[in-house]
């Protein structure tokens, strides 16, 4: 009984320490962003809102995998705790030298293997193939080039002619031409639109060609279940389809330097008409600013 009291004491100490942390935990942090972001973001082991056509497949895979993990852990934990209590050292209790022939453990391992094969071959590989490889036909999709740089996302729209203009690193001007668009030399570049926020249509496939000007970034749309590294020297397409309008976030998921954390952009999912209006507005030559 002596031992048990000390354990209770320890638990009380630990609880007190946790409790001492509680006020801090409750302290709210003021939001930094001035634009309200739509969607629900997990508070207790839940994924963020899903606004994409394919996202639920990934979500299901994550949920089923976690269910499988929970079954394994709980089942295995019950046996573990049973052993801890049943076979503790006490007077009159002796360990058995002979080893049990544990058939259940073999079944368990085979079961684990089978479930893993099902999860991998039945779910993961097909999902991967469709969300990463099977791009929608180019004429049906809305195309945007995403050019990452330290520490901003540049979005490059082809403009009315539907063709992306030529870019050249030598023409890059950080303020006025971050993409290095050759507006003078290439006719396709004349009408190209550049923005620091992502506007995409709802209910239409979107293909984003991801690239980077300097280091490795990662294009992450939490509500779209999309993540793709932006590698310098490569242009990698990803696609997704939004099913709901709203304002969401584009995040950088790969350490890209000191201000990696502030490499955030906004994504506006809009009806096609609104998007066209926005693009038209953006495509106008800049109006002179008169003081």
């Amino acid at each position, binding site marked *: 009984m002596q031992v048990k009291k000390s354990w209770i004491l320890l638990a009380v100490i630990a609880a007190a320490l946790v409790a001492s942390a509680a006020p801090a935990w409750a302290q709210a942090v003021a939001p930094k962003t001035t634009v309200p972001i739509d969607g629900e973001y997990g508070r207790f082991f839940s994924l963020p809102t899903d606004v994409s056509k394919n996202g639920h497949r990934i979500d299901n895979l994550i949920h089923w995998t976690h269910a499988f993990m929970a079954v394994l852990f709980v089942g295995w934990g019950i046996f573990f705790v049973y052993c801890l209590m049943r076979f503790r050292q006490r007077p009159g209790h002796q360990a058995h030298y002979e080893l049990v022939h544990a058939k259940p453990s073999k079944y368990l391992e085979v079961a684990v293997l089978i479930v893993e094969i099902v999860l*991998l071959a039945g779910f*993961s590989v097909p999902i991967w193939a469709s*969300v990463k490889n099977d791009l929608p036909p180019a004429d049906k999709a809305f195309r945007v080039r995403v050019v990452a740089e330290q520490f901003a996302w540049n979005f490059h729209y082809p403009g009315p002619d539907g063709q992306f203009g030529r870019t050249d690193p030598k023409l890059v001007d950080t303020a006025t031409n971050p993409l290095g668009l050759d507006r003078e030399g290439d006719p396709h570049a004349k009408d190209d639109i550049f923005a620091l926020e992502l506007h995409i249509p709802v209910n239409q496939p979107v293909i984003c060609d991801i690239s980077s000007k300097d280091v490795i970034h990662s294009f992450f749309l939490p509500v779209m279940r999309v993540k793709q590294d932006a590698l310098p020297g490569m242009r990698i397409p990803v696609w997704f389809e939004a099913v709901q309008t709203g304002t969401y976030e584009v995040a950088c998921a790969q350490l890209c330097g000191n201000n990696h954390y502030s490499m955030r952009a906004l994504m506006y999912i809009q009806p096609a008409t609104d998007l066209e209006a926005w693009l038209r507005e953006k495509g106008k030559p800049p109006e002179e600013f008169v003081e």
Partner: protein
Amino acid sequence: MTEAHHHHDDHHHHPELGWWRKYVFSTDHKVIGVQYTVTALLFLLFGFTLVMIMRWQLAYPGKPIPLIGGLLGKTLANDGTLLPEGYNALGAMHGTIMVFLGIVPLIVGGFGNYVMPLQIGAPDMAFPKLNMASYWVYFCGGMVMLLSFFAPGGAANSGWTSYAPLSVVATQGQTWWLFGMVLLITSSLLGSINFIVTIIQLRAKGLDFFKLPFFVWSQFVTAFLLLLAFPPLEAAGALQLMDRLAGTSFFMPEGLVVSGIVQPYTGGGSPLLWQHLFWFLAHPEVYVLILPAMGMVAEVIANNTRKPLWGYRLMVYSVIFLGFMSFIVWAHHMFITGMGTRISAFFATTTMIISIPSVIILTALVISLYRSSIRYNVPMLFALAFLPMFAIGGLTGLPLGLPAADIQLHDTYYVIGHFHYVVAPGTIFAAFAGIYHWYPKVTGRTMNPALGKIHFVLSFIFINVVFMPMFFQGMAGVSRRLFDQTFYQHGLDVQGWTQLSSWGAWMLGLSQVPFIMNFFMSLRAGRKVSDNPWEATTLEWAAPSPPPHGNFATVPVVYRGPYEYSVPGQKKDFFPQHLAKAEA
């Protein structure tokens, strides 16, 4: 011993060795083991301190750090408030220090050096001078890493993975980091050669490979991983040094524009080449971090269940298989780099396959509890806690190994939670079990069990408070390595979990005070114990405590397997390996 009359320079040990030769530049594996252990524990504490500082910024972004904020200098902080560059430097150095300067030197350099030769009945390591060199090269590497904090621009700040091109254009600290890594790799290479040769050549008579304690097996496989996986990183380090210092473009593609400036690199390189070379090392490295821990846990569990390990041979085969497989799973760290379906499916398959031997080892350890007689002493508590903690760490690896699920979870806090569960409450708990278990062998005294239990309970609670919230953050989509996650809405919404996690970390830091007190006080005040206080069977307990130079008074001969506990018909419940007959 036929060669006993061959005396060489190495072995002319005069009794009047000076203090320097005896305790500082010693060639005795036990002294080196203690040096490794103490240095590594200090580095672990330092690495943990770094993260406690970072956790302040994460919990209370932009607020000055209390108490120690002023000590951080001008590069890392401004008026006691951590800066992003400081956060990144601390983050990169936390990873590097914990992995390369803390855990590996502790469980391989420290425990491996001290315990392994004793467990195989060897008088020393096969190459004692090499062993000493290995420690001192490690020490120098550690010093280079520490000094890099004072380099212009601070320590390396491109993450412990040092992804190019970021690391190539990074501040000078990265060059220091690379030099430090070259030294650490060299140290590991010297050590691993020594370990393998020692295990192959110096086993006591009768000690077949399948009579080796599981710990020795884990060290054996680990040494092979170190031997074969580290050189590619050394090559990668050399290439990155060339990129940084000679302006080559191994990892630099054409047309890079950094900060609006066209970079002078010719181009033609591939940023992915670094990742391939790095993860070719770093995935086996993960097993370097966990296999010796499994070995230690197996030792402690076998000893305290008073029963042979269940499935010893199966475990040995599993550990060999793990070692082999760990070389062909590396690209599962790179699913998001733009991999096609086939390659990702291949690496996902190997990843699923490698989970099986881990499940086998874990299951074997749990089944070993069945029909045993569990002795709840401090090392056993830590070893038992290792099992569920490692299980959580291993299981959460599953969604990360499935490429489609990894799309959402890659590089989020989910990953952080996953590998910390493997390494912190996994490996570090195993190391604590090892320290409490072998302390009597090293000092002749036990550590205080009451303080040990306090240490265990508090550590167990708070380590979960630290890492469990990370899964919630990760599911919500919060990326890792963010200086201030409240910049994002999804980060803001789970900020409460971050704060809880931070408080857990600081409490976990406090929970180590009983351990530190215990560690030092027991040197003087610990209860004096016999040579074999745990009534264990393996050879290290046949040597005196502490073992003298040369380890064994008489060279032991081995008659049976490592875990002959509760043998029927015996008077005592343990039957040491070196005894021909049971004691009457």
